[in-house]
């Protein structure tokens, strides 16, 4: 696998405030990389540093194996970006807005403009002034701007902002289709864990400017398994038995009536043995996991 994005010790200080600290990101070719973090955690600042919109206090950025400082023009031919809110000329149509970016980008044919507007679902209004667009339509235009040059690597900062559920579903489909069909790598920053879980295959989590975890989504999900969900009878007896074990961190009854047990994965068999040997009938026993949100907050 080739790393299309690598940051080494990327750091940004705004005066005394440390916005991003020693960040080492790695995105492989073909990844749908979810860059997760709460508001103000440094996601957008990181994207801006990667795209050289702001200067890093320290660290290096490599895109497609090349240094972004010395090979910027070569690199940016293959990069598309939507950073924070979509920006546009309100007195121009979507077509004219994209024409300006096409001229700035170079070798993109004019025929690409209606094509990309069709992709994001803006074709019916493409000749209308952008000032008359809804927030969702402006967001779609921002995504069209990022996809205009058929880039190999696309940065999308909160791409589903302002979109309705149908729009979110559509854009998610576009991202996954481009990734599957053309091998486009996406770096999607978001504070919506559920959205990232549905779209991405690799995740980096950032909090207060520091990278907490970076791994495949499957591996992170595996790390979120923290216990069992048990349907058993009699329940009170089971609760008493489980509550007396020192290796069980917590037991509680869930609204649906099942018992939620928090314990290490290597003791799952012991839980079953303990209940069965003491005459508790276990009708269902499944691994239970934290939501990604709970996992994130626990870090």
């Amino acid at each position, binding site marked *: 696998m080739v790393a299309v994005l690598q940051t080494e010790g990327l750091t940004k200080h705004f005066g005394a405030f440390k916005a991003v600290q020693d960040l080492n990101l790695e995105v492989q070719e073909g990844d749908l990389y979810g860059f997760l973090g709460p508001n103000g955690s440094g996601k957008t600042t990181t994207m801006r540093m990667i795209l050289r919109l702001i200067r890093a206090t320290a660290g290096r950025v490599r895109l497609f194996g090349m240094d972004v400082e010395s090979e910027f023009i070569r690199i940016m031919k293959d990069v598309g970006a939507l950073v924070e*809110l979509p920006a546009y*000329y309100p*007195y121009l149509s979507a077509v004219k807005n994209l024409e300006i970016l096409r001229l*700035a980008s170079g070798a993109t044919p004019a025929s690409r403009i209606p094509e990309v507007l069709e992709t994001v679902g803006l074709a019916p209004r493409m000749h209308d002034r952008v000032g008359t667009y809804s927030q969702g339509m402006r967001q779609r235009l921002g995504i069209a701007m990022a996809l205009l040059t058929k880039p190999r690597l696309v940065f999308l900062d909160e791409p589903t902002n302002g979109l309705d559920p149908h729009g979110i579903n559509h854009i998610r489909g576009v991202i996954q289709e481009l990734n599957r069909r053309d091998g486009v790598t996406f770096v999607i920053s978001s504070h919506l864990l559920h959205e990232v879980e549905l779209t991405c295959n690799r995740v980096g989590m950032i909090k207060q400017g520091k990278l907490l975890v970076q791994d495949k989504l499957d591996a992170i999900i595996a790390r979120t398994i923290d216990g069992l969900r048990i349907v058993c009878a009699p329940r009170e007896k089971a609760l008493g038995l489980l509550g007396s074990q020192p290796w069980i961190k917590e037991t509680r009854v869930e609204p649906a009536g099942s018992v939620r047990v928090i314990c290490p994965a290597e003791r799952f068999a012991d839980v079953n043995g303990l209940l069965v040997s003491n005459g508790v009938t276990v009708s269902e026993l499944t691994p239970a996991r934290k939501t990604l949100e709970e996992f994130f907050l626990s870090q």
Partner: protein
Amino acid sequence: MIDRIGRLTAAEFLKLASQPFFYVSLFLLVLFIPTFELGTAIFAGQKETAWKSLNSVQLFAYGFKPGLKIATYVLLIFSSMMFAGEFDRGTIKNLLTRPITRLEFFIAKCVTITGLALLLFGFVFYVSSVVALLRGDVGPVWHDSQYYIHRDGSVMLAFARKAVLMSFLAFVTAGFMGILVSNLTESSGYSVAIALVAFLVSDLATGMLIDRAKEKLFMYYPSYAIDKLTQFGEGDTTRWAPHIDEQMLYLTVPSFYIIVFIPLAFSIFRSRNITA
């Protein structure tokens, strides 16, 4: 690099040509230049000069001076929005994440402003000339009482040509002043306000300063050149100040300002973090 600057300049002109204010400005020039040109001739009345009738050079000067003043403010408005407007809307981040350098982007903006200055200057010149030629005459001016040719037509035209050329570089410099101001703030409203106030104050100052001090301000030269042309057109005996003529201050002073404005504006732009 030249190819990229060319494409960026084309994009800039596409934006410029799509702004309604651009056409409003041209309309205002078409409206005001003939009004001033004919109005001044009608209401100011014929001075006690050797002129027998209104001549084209005189009329041209009446229209060209206010026309150029309006065009200067238009140029200042556009140039002071050049960078601040991109920051204001956030479109700067769209452009700077394309395969271009900040230097290329900056040069394209400067080329666009120079192009716009040429266009506005040419437009003011054209409208002033058309009205002057329709209403007045070009040719030798006859002294009515003493029966001799007071001034030859070619002398008049040469004087007018020089006055126009003298005012051009200072006019362009106003555009570069706008570009500098545009890099000082991220708000296009503030930027336009700062540029207009700065220019207005400096322009007013030229009326209060002594000649040697005025001559150090670039905005002095269009007024100086066209005032001289007006006097000449009205029949006064006037001539260019020898030291301005010999030292070509109308070129060197604006050039000095341009040499200061451009690197300063670029150094601010280059070092700026794009947080728009």
